[in-house]
């Protein structure tokens, strides 16, 4: 069966430091991969999605970037974190464009 792993679960970083959140999927090949940010009272906001290795689409301009170095690996990065980057970040995968998305446990990011 397919599984999705996301780490770390929580992260506290100082302003201006770099960021790397990792997400991997097992048990499937060529998944669509997604990074979301979940804000309290505002639902989920799609940040990036990828339909294949090296293919990244950005939905909102921001201080973050994403990369997909391998088929089942999706990384969310920043060179310099801002206070406004604090939040809850979720990785998800789906089997195709019209397939349901399946979520990881999320990462709680706090910027000090």
């Amino acid at each position, binding site marked *: 069966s397919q599984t999705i792993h996301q780490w770390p679960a929580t992260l506290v970083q100082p302003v201006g430091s770099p960021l790397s959140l990792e997400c991997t999927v097992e048990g499937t090949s060529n998944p669509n991969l997604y990074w979301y940010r979940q804000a309290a009272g505002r639902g989920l906001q799609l940040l990036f999605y990828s339909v294949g290795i090296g293919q990244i689409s950005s*939905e909102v301009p921001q201080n973050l970037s994403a990369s997909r170095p391998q088929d089942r690996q999706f990384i969310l990065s920043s060179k310099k974190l801002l206070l406004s980057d604090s939040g809850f970040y979720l990785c998800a995968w789906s089997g195709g*464009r019209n397939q349901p998305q*399946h979520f990881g*446990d999320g990462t709680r990011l706090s910027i000090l």
Partner: protein
Amino acid sequence: AQRVTQPEKLLSVFKGAPVELKCNYSYSGSPELFWYVQYSRQRLQLLLRHISRESIKGFTADLNKGETSFHLKKPFAQEEDSAMYYCALLTNYQLIWGAGTKLIIKP
């Protein structure tokens, strides 16, 4: 504009009472809608999708294109239904999410 609205941030009902979580959408194409649920300390998970026309954990949701709604219903609430519920609309690759409704089932 593509939008999903869940008008209630919080819904509290007694155990055994009927539950209806409201979801309205705005989309010019043919909508594909989902309900996701997040129980305490668990990950966000798919509850049901409209094209499946199935009942999961006693919940059903019917797509009403005339009213642009996809309300989630259960005739008799159970305490284990307490959770955060999100309605989502699939457009191209993107899921457009409602803000969520926190459902509390009182004993």
